[in-house]
């Protein structure tokens, strides 16, 4: 079928990729069996493709579940939040389309022009989401004690916290570590 450069079209494309890969695996296993391999050896020889088919199957499920579950949620939230949630879904679907563009070229009728459009769409989504990036992670609502990170604290005092943590090192408890007298000084004086 003609390629449809929409979220649903990409999800359908991932279903085609998964079905196509599974079909190729079955064909390769059968071909290897006809050439005299037993089923187990034919399976093993095809296992790289089989693992890839499973990953594509799972990817298709993740995309379609994320899309359908968000569609359900979208009707229950304010328009401002709905816009951001749908942008996140679009970003996820378009990101994976670009990550798996080889598979889409192999099993669907996607064209170079469609891919170019996807790339522009993706970069446009990044720009749209940029103002909400911090708001989106604040919404995960991790307290500083749970985040436990000098880089990620709510107040953003990164450099002060990095220094505070550094000073907790037991090595900073004394200005001259014992190893100077034990090892370094004798070494420097050629007595070690």
């Amino acid at each position, binding site marked *: 079928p003609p390629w449809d450069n929409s979220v649903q079209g990409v999800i359908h494309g991932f279903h085609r990729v998964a079905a196509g890969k599974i079909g190729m695996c079955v064909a390769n296993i059968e071909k290897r069996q006809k050439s005299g391999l037993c089923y187990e050896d034919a399976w093993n020889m095809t296992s790289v493709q089989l693992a890839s088919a499973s990953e594509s199957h799972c990817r298709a499920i993740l995309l379609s579940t994320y899309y359908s579950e968000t569609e359900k949620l979208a009707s229950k939230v304010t328009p401002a939040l709905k816009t*951001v949630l749908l942008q996140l879904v679009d970003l996820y679907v378009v990101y994976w389309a670009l990550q798996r563009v080889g598979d889409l070229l192999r099993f669907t009728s996607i064209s170079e022009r469609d891919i170019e459009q996807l790339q522009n769409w993706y970069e446009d989504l990044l720009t749209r989401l940029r*103002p909400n990036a911090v708001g989106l992670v604040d919404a*995960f609502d991790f*307290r500083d004690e749970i985040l436990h990170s000098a*880089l*990620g604290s709510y107040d953003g005092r*990164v450099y002060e916290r990095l220094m505070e943590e550094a000073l*907790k090192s037991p090595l900073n408890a004394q200005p001259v570590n014992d190893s100077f007298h034990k090892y370094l000084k004798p070494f420097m004086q050629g007595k070690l």
Partner: protein
Amino acid sequence: VNPDLQRERDKCTFNVTELTNLIDGGVQNTEERKRQEDLLLKEGIHIEEVPSEYLSHKEKYELAVKKACLLFKVIRRMQEEENTGMENYRSVLGGNLGSAILADGSPLTLHYVMFIPTILGQATVEQQAYWIGRAFNLDIIGTYAQTELGHGTFIRGLETTATYDPSTKEFVLHSPTLTSYKWWPGGLAHTANYCIVMAQLYTKGQCHGLHPFIVQLRDEETHMPLKGIKIGEIGVKLGMNGTNNGFLGFEHVRIPRENMLMKNSKVLEDGTYVHSLSSKLTYGTMMFVRVVLVTDMCNYMAKAVTIATRYSAVRRQSQPKPDEPEPQILDYVTQQHKLMIGISTVHAFRLSANWLWHMYNNVIAELDTGDLERLPELHALSCCLKAVTTADAAECVERCRLSCGGHGYMLSSSLPTTYGLVTAACTYEGENTVLLLQTARYLVKAWQQAMGGNALTPTVSYISEVSTGRRS
């Protein structure tokens, strides 16, 4: 608050609290979560005089045990005061709080995530009556041992044997080789005194495959290992060094017949073996754990992308326009490319985990009516979802760490520890490649069914639609 970060918050176009409530599953859940956090963090269990990163391996374990016991004391008090149940344990322990208080893993996690759920899922009512109360009260501490030194995901290859002796009505557990030693279970080395052991059942000279047995490891008073039990720590790891992973070998250890969990399969006193409904039933615990795993991946990724995004709003770098100040690194599209997908992946996994959880509960409900039709589909789904989500999560956390430059390499950033927790999930509860191949078995069968014109279960129905050219 850092002015750059404040400016980011000022320009946000949606209501952050509304999204928090959505993520938590409602305003009440947010309030309950915050209340639990307040309650537990007020105890100060998470506060360390010296950061635990500077402790020895032994000290890390001792600190983890101390924290875990203090944590359970508080949880038990919460239970008594509020009359809550198991859910309370899981929501506190499995979620962010547990990993915040026990950053490097807890030696008691498996007691709640595996030992109790397995008893609930695979013990008879009488057995549950005997064990569950003691487990909930922490009168006993349990763990779960399936993986061996020489075998893991391929569970039919496990070598530990449980041979029924009808003359004494006992099972004799034995580790025939070094490779048959149980290896990895958290809490096994020095913490647990009981263990659910998965062993190949032999009765009347015949092998009936893998079955669960409850075995006492240590004396309940002295905590000394019992006769015939060889037990210890497996050594320091890439991460999770608080979990007390151990090894366990048996030298002809006898346990009473009643210690085989017999909800599904049974061994009668004379040694007669009674089949279970389906060999897939023993997967119950594993599927439950995999569903929990996908949710855990969301939490770890959410933490990592929170750290990296806030840092990226504060950090300034380079001067693309000569007459302007250094921009925030979050203004670089390459940085947005590294982080935004992490934010949307958290939501994708959270919704998928909820969806899988509902499907798991529906299938388990159907199981109780004897309808096993969707069990293979659920098993295949839990395998590939566990493999893909853990791999994606590990990649996402590593990308967040790298997006923070050198400071992401500091343990005080919390990103390396988070990576250690996440990447471990790629190999426990089923090694990812083996799981993908298990799903492939189901997909090949589904393909052949579709070619035969048969109806397919919902998650693979696209195969027949695509092969007949219809839209999914």
